[in-house]
């Protein structure tokens, strides 16, 4: 029974840790499926984290904070689109630039607004996303097995967690069941064909990059206003890159992306719960658990477990034939 309680707690932690990864991973999925590589996920999340916390601290409303975070992330997305779609620049370099830009700008603006050394003041009350308790969660928590699962695992997260997990079927439906999704995928595989069909390649790609910006904005706001109560410099701590690894691990498919993010979240949660794991004489140090997401991604990329084939036109700016 004690094992079961621990298990539920670890899984609960997994969901909290996987949510920012999942949002960023889906963001990357839209962008990369449309043929725009985006390693600026980290920077966009960081920017959104700062602006959501900053605006929530000033106005006292977390919803205005969320909007500000999304707007900030969209702005960086627009920059990425301008550089890599309109001016056909190198997408990787533009992404790196966005990461640097966000890392520096957030601290600079935070210092000038709040004079607290690149931090925002602590948020409280309406300035934070509070956990949502589902009906009967308290009453049902006494029921064996199902009670704790409902009360702890499913209920009691902030609304952004449910948004993130609802985005998975939504993304699947948009990509595979709508005309927009078909064209989006086509523009990542063979933009010339889309162009021949009379659909704007540039427009589609900008739409994809914008969706990416919105999702990264929600991810950043979740970090700063739901998981935490304020912004701390570099608080994304590499989550944008783990999300990219999850995207490759999932081979650019929405449902797989969810499982990949949950797996990576689970690895983190286990590493946080148990410092060193003793498996009948063999001790697995915590560092191995921390490195495992990257190791798994390399294994997938090396082709040991299936093959990860990126969208064919990914990374290539589209030039109309003359």
């Amino acid at each position, binding site marked *: 029974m004690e094992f079961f309680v621990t298990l539920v707690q670890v899984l609960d932690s997994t969901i909290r840790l996987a949510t920012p990864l999942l949002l960023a991973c889906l963001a990357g999925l839209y962008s990369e499926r449309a043929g725009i590589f985006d390693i600026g996920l980290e920077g966009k999340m960081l920017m959104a984290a700062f602006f959501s916390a900053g605006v929530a601290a000033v106005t006292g409303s977390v919803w205005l904070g969320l909007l500000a975070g999304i707007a900030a992330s969209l702005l960086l997305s627009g920059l990425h689109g301008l550089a890599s779609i309109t001016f056909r620049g190198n997408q990787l370099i533009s992404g790196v630039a966005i990461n640097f830009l966000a890392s520096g700008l957030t601290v600079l603006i935070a210092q000038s607004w709040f004079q607290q*050394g*690149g*931090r925002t003041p*602590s948020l409280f009350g309406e300035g934070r996303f509070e956990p949502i308790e589902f009906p009967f969660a308290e009453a049902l928590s006494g029921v064996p097995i199902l009670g704790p699962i409902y009360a702890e695992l499913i209920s009691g997260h902030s609304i952004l967690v449910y948004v993130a997990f609802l985005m998975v079927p939504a993304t699947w439906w948009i990509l595979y069941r709508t005309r927009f999704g078909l064209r989006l995928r086509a523009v990542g595989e063979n933009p010339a064909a889309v162009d021949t069909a009379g659909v704007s390649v540039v427009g589609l790609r900008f739409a994809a990059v914008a969706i990416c910006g919105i999702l990264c904005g929600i991810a950043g706001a979740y*970090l700063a206003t739901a998981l*935490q109560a*304020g912004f*701390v410099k*570099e608080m994304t701590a*590499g989550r944008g890159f783990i999300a990219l690894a999850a995207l490759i691990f999932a081979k650019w498919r929405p449902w797989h992306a969810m499982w990949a993010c949950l797996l990576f979240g689970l690895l983190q949660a286990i590493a946080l719960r148990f410092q060193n794991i003793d498996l009948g004489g063999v001790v697995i140090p915590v560092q191995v658990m921390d490195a495992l997401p990257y190791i798994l991604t390399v294994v997938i990329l090396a082709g040991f477990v299936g093959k990860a084939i990126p969208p064919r036109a990914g990374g290539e700016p589209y030039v109309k034939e003359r």
Partner: protein
Amino acid sequence: MILMKSLMGAAAAVALTAGAALAEPALIFDLGGKFDKSFNEAAHNGAQRWADETGGTYREIELQSEAQREQALRRFAEAGANPIITMGFAMADPLSAVAGDYPDTKFVAVDVTWLDAPNIRQIGFAEHEGSYLVGMMAAMASESGTVGFIGGMDIPLIRHFGCGYAQGAKAVNPDVEVVANMTGTTPAAWNDPVKGSELTKAQISQGADVIYAAAGGTGVGVLQTAADEGILSIGVDSNQNHLHPGKVLTSMLKRVDVAVYDAMKAGENLETGVFAMGLAEEGVGVAMDENNAPLVSDEMKGAVDKARQDIIDGNVTVVSYYENDSCPALQF
């Protein structure tokens, strides 16, 4: 041509005297950044106090990456800054490489005690003694009999903190359980409040009801989550009691500000060598103010005061983690 030469000479002489007159101190912050509400901010406060009192100016830089360490040292040394104050254990290697090249410049190394150079003032804090005192308070305040420790990056210095804390807790209650976790093994572990929160929740679910955070910016998440979940936390380095009044039991003070202030005040006549800042020198201590007054009982205060005196008198010895790279009270 001769005129030219004498002109150049005069210019050089002016430059030299100007350099001598302008020997202002320099301060190099570690990667945590100047306003980390903790270690580096304490240094900033000390330097600022010196500047306000004397009207002097000092140079400073916030390091952004490992590669800048040696570069920053050489820059300041070439520019004639004296003394040059560095923060953090990671400056040890760059210092040992650079100090020999500038024998007339005095360097100050906070948290470094093992270098062999005539022109470095090395300051080691007895963090284990201060941590021992907050460990005692944690064990006395705990109702569950389990207390937690959350470290930042897994380095000997942080284990040193945790080790003193565990010894203090066990001195009060030999049966107390100490849950210890490290945030990570890379410098990112100093700025990951999200992980700090998750670690706090994990420790709470293991029964901890007082948690000591020695983790830089990550500690912000620990203190926040502890306050949200209704348990007590303990801050570190600077006085963090005000961050969540009534929810932070105390803070383990590391008077980096005093060390920096003293070094700047001494200026070029700084004494070099290895200096220890322990309880006796008031280099470490526990923070008591109006924010945590309701949390600290008279009994607790009495016990802490007695232990402080015992440690200073040598009646109680707190084992340092550095002695044999292991801790008698805690398994990492």
